[in-house]
């Protein structure tokens, strides 16, 4: 197995793992019982998943312009996605959205 085959396989694996992480966030969005837990699921998996997928795609980028754009996308989402979910959770807390305690019905 030559070097380029290994790189392509590694990139494919990274992208699939990133997609699995994102999918787990999506499942969490549906299954978790209340808003704050869902914010937790989405915020973490969005950033991690995009980072992994971008890393995988960089490995198979045809030239450096594409690689730079992917780095920018990953940096950008790493900066804005946690901020947006943080602002959302804080706004919801201020607004009085109910915090689930064990034993409550699902929200």
């Amino acid at each position, binding site marked *: 197995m030559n070097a380029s085959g290994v790189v392509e396989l590694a990139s494919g694996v990274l992208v699939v793992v990133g997609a699995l992480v994102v999918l787990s966030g999506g499942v969490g969005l549906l299954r978790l019982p209340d808003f704050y837990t869902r914010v937790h699921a989405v915020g973490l998996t969005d950033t991690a998943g995009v980072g992994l997928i971008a890393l995988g795609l960089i490995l198979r980028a045809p030239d450096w312009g594409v690689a730079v754009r992917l780095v920018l996308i990953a940096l950008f989402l790493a*900066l*804005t996605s946690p901020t947006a979910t943080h*602002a959302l959770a804080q706004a919801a807390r201020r607004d009085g959205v109910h915090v689930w305690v064990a034993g409550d019905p699902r929200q």
Partner: protein
Amino acid sequence: MTPEVELINIVLFAILVATAVGITRLRGLYGAVMLAALFSLVIACLFVLLDAVDVAFTEAAVGAGISTVLMLTVLALTRAREAVTPRRRLWPAGIGSVLAGGMLIYASQDLPAFGRPDTPVQSHPVTATYLQASQDEIGVPNTVTSVLASYRGYDTLGELAVIFTAGIAVQLILSQVPRHDPDFEREKLLLTDYRVLRVVSKVLFPFIFLFALYVQFHGDYGPGGGFQAGVIFASGFVLYGLVFGIDTARRVMPGRLLQLLISSGLLLYAGVGVANMLLGGAFLDYDTLNPGHPVDGQHLGILLVELGVGITVAGVMMAIFFICADRRAAG
């Protein structure tokens, strides 16, 4: 079409139909506006699948970006819940929709299959002429830009005039609605209280404006151009106004400067056309801008014209946002 692309298309269309049903069923209008943004996003994905990159860019910019923000600012001026439709209106509306939709579906049976080589679009000599002549006469890699700004320059001038008129009309109409009280901001959610948001937004602004300039001037070589760049530029100021308050944003971009921006873009575009006439050619014939080298003249003309489009679009979007966000609901 390969089976993978077919599968992706089917899933996206299913999402579209579900979203449309959701928008009509939701009575909370804020949720409906967010679903409309999702709708625009899926449409942009479909355009990307169809290889129409410029259109996808514009759809994402206008449909999912600025349009959502403007609808939300207008929602803040009226009630947030949809009124109940009386029963007697449901039947005529339903019949009308079924008839119109049915006619469209029936008419679409006559369309040729997607991508067939013998359709009029593919086989008419006009297409080949434009694709070939664009490389010879204008020499710009992105044919969409060359058609938009040079071959169909009158069209784009008309579109720009429509945007200009819309900006003026919104300002005229909404100037009748009373403005916020100065202490209104204190009752509302003060986003400046959120330190994380403030710091992150300040870090982002230079990149947003730089990206807008990149899209503006890179429109000749990749997806982009004046419209998208103007929307991105306006989004930067919208973010500033949202996080730091409309009054602070107005100090950075005062009303007079906005009026200047709105009008100067259109003047630049039409001015290029008049300059062409004065130099001896037809209106918007960019060859005359550089008499010895018509291709360079075309490049210069397209650059100036797209700049005019970007300036006016940015100005109009910013003006509409500032006006809408500054009013309070009547009564």
